[in-house]
């Protein structure tokens, strides 16, 4: 079988680039929801802060998985 095209060098960075798209959109959606709800009803801002932090931490964990694996895997 002939090789038609090949990528040389470190493919980890391509993997990390693909893996960063999802968490970026996810974090943006979380903050959109928090900003919208705080603007509509400012008294709920303190109450919603729980889920803001929890959601941000969960989504950011996936992004950091990608970052760590990009450097750790040879």
């Amino acid at each position: 079988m002939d090789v038609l095209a090949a990528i040389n060098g470190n493919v980890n960075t391509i993997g990390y680039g693909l893996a960063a798209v999802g968490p970026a959109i996810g974090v943006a959606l979380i903050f959109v929801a928090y900003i919208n709800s705080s603007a509509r009803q400012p008294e709920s801002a303190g109450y919603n802060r729980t889920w803001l932090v929890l959601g941000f931490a969960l989504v950011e964990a996936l992004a950091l998985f990608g970052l760590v694996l990009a450097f750790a895997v040879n």
Partner: protein
Amino acid sequence: MGDDLHSGKSDEHSSEGAAGAVVGYLLAGILAWGFLGWLAERFLGLPNGLGVAAGMILGAAGAIYLIMKRLSA
């Protein structure tokens, strides 16, 4: 909204501190337990890559628990 169901004092009283703490705890958790999982994999002979993956997931879970406890959120 009348009573704040999750009221408790957060350790960080500024938003930049809270954001830095979240990312810092997550990174620390993933790195620490990923490294311990890698050591376990080398010395216990687990299937290739399983120790690191299990360690990272455990570390991420622990970090999220720590964030919720520390930041009282």
